[in-house]
């Protein structure tokens, strides 16, 4: 037998042979096995044992080909429906021992539940504990994740089934937070065209939009005098028909610019759906509290305020969900159609007489304008000019006289 001097244990050697040993230990085991006769013997025994076990073979299935009828039937009934054959179902099951145990147990549980509910109904007023329970009810209340469902509307829009769009009310009514099984993509595209026949192009654009069940989100037409007309429109086209619509639009003129993009909103949608479900659950619980419990007016008002707040949040989320669904179902195509611009010839210049007359009129206008400007200046600046003149008149006269007298004195000195 193997002694304790071996760097690897017997179990480890077995795990190594089974391919279940960690790499570092497996390297050590392989190295040790190369030169240890005892371990080689054990390894040989274990291998032989596995070979011997393989001697026990089972006979082949008699009906190896094809799927059995029972399974085919179960596949027809799926998912999750109990099979009607082979097992004892219906009222007879109650006669079995297990049926009696289960039936009795269920009856006791129902009785206990009923008595508990009655005792709860008798509670006359809310106490602090109940109020604190109420305050704990927040939108973050977790909801057990339910089984995934397929949103035919949204997925259909992605898969080319825009006609089968499920209405928003139906989705909201179902109240089941499902997980879309294909990515939800909000598609966007841009197209800039230049055309010679602007009016015809516009009519054709509207025709294409109608044919593809789309609608005009926004439209703007500008017609500057020194340039061609420009039409800028935001078109909403069912996502599966975007490619076809774009191909038709491109035929309307010369393509100057084209772009396409997609934003995956699956996660956003799933989050929104989960929050919405939580919100509804909270609202339901609050309504239940309001219905089943009586208390002070103040407490009742608190619950009603909370319900109002939750309802507001639910409505906001429903609007967001609707908008998100619309973004996925309808692609946004920003289109610009430019008209090719043709410069017009200059008209004939006016006659010389007209030009003299125009010059005379201009001269008269200039004189009148000048006089008006002077008058306006005097009126606006006159009072302040008069004021400053009155203030500065006497000092200026005094200074003037002083200078004059000094000059006179100097002249007399020179003559002396």
């Amino acid at each position, binding site marked *: 037998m193997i002694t304790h001097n071996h760097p690897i244990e*017997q*179990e480890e050697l*077995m*795990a190594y042979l*089974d391919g*279940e040993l960690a790499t570092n230990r497996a390297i050590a085991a392989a190295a040790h096995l190369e030169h240890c006769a005892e371990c080689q013997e054990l390894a040989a*025994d*274990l291998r032989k*044992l*596995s070979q*011997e*076990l*393989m*001697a*026990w*073979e*089972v*006979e*082949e*299935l*008699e*009906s*190896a080909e094809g*799927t*059995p009828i*029972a*399974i085919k039937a*179960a*596949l027809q009934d*799926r*998912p*999750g*429906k*109990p*099979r009607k054959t082979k097992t004892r179902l219906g009222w007879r099951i109650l006669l079995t021992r297990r049926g009696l145990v289960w039936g009795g147990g269920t009856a006791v549980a129902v009785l206990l539940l009923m008595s508990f509910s009655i005792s709860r109904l008798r509670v006359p007023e809310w106490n602090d504990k109940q109020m604190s329970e109420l305050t704990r009810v927040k939108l973050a209340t977790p909801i057990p994740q339910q*089984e995934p469902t397929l949103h035919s509307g949204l997925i259909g829009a992605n898969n080319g089934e825009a006609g089968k769009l499920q209405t928003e009310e139906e989705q909201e009514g179902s109240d089941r937070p499902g997980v879309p*099984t294909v990515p939800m993509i909000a598609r966007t595209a841009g197209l800039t065209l230049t055309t010679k026949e602007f009016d015809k192009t516009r009519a054709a654009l509207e025709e294409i939009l109608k044919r593809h069940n789309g609608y005009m989100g926004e439209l703007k037409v500008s017609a500057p005098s020194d340039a061609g007309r420009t039409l800028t429109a935001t078109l909403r086209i069912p996502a599966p028909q975007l490619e076809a619509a774009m191909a038709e639009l491109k035929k309307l003129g010369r393509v100057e610019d084209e772009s396409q993009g997609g934003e995956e909103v699956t996660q956003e949608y799933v989050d929104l759906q989960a929050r919405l479900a939580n919100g509804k659950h909270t609202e339901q619980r609050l309504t239940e509290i309001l219905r089943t419990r009586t208390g002070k007016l103040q407490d009742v008002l608190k619950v009603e305020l909370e319900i109002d707040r939750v309802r507001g949040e639910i409505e906001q989320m429903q609007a967001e969900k609707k908008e998100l669904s619309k973004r996925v179902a309808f692609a946004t195509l920003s289109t610009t159609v430019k008209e090719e611009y043709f410069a017009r010839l200059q008209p004939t210049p006016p006659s010389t007489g007209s030009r003299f007359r125009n010059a005379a009129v201009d001269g008269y206008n200039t004189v009148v304008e000048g006089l008006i400007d002077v008058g306006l200046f005097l009126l606006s600046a006159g009072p302040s000019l008069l004021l400053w003149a009155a203030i500065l008149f006497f000092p200026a006269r005094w200074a003037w006289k002083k200078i004059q007298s000094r000059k006179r004195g100097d002249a007399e000195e020179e003559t002396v």
Partner: protein
Amino acid sequence: MLKFQRGSREAFEELFARYREPLYGFFRRRLASKDRAEDLAQETFLAVIRAVVRYEPRALVKTYLYGIALKLLAVERRKLSGNEPQIDEHHEPAEDGPQEQALWVRQALEKLDAGEREILMLREYEQLSYEEIAELLRLPVNTVRSRLFRSRMALKSFLEPKRKIQSRTRGAAEGEAQS
């Protein structure tokens, strides 16, 4: 399995084709009746179909299927509760044919502790990893390893008489050939 959950019948048929024989083998080696083994293999798939909506990909499909199979086996054993025909332990197969070898193995396995036998069989016949066995039987991986080792060593000792007979037969045959 997830494809089947999403409604793909082809996915189920692939699953059925891949695991039908192994599941039948699982029940056949643990039950005396061939018909019951076949029925229970089928029952496993029916349970998969019924529970598909609740399926969560927490484990490998193989582990999931053998988990169901183990539960069905436990129910079946409870039903039989000792009425199942046992292998004759006193009968020692003398010849060295494939049938006799299989009988030797079965007898040796019968002598093992039930828990250790299950681990050994899951490893040898169902080819499950230590981790998968641990998950199925809700045991720590190290426990699975040590029990597996114990059961292999015990099985080796139970198969010793067979080895002796084999070596004796082989020696006699060689002697005859030489003479």
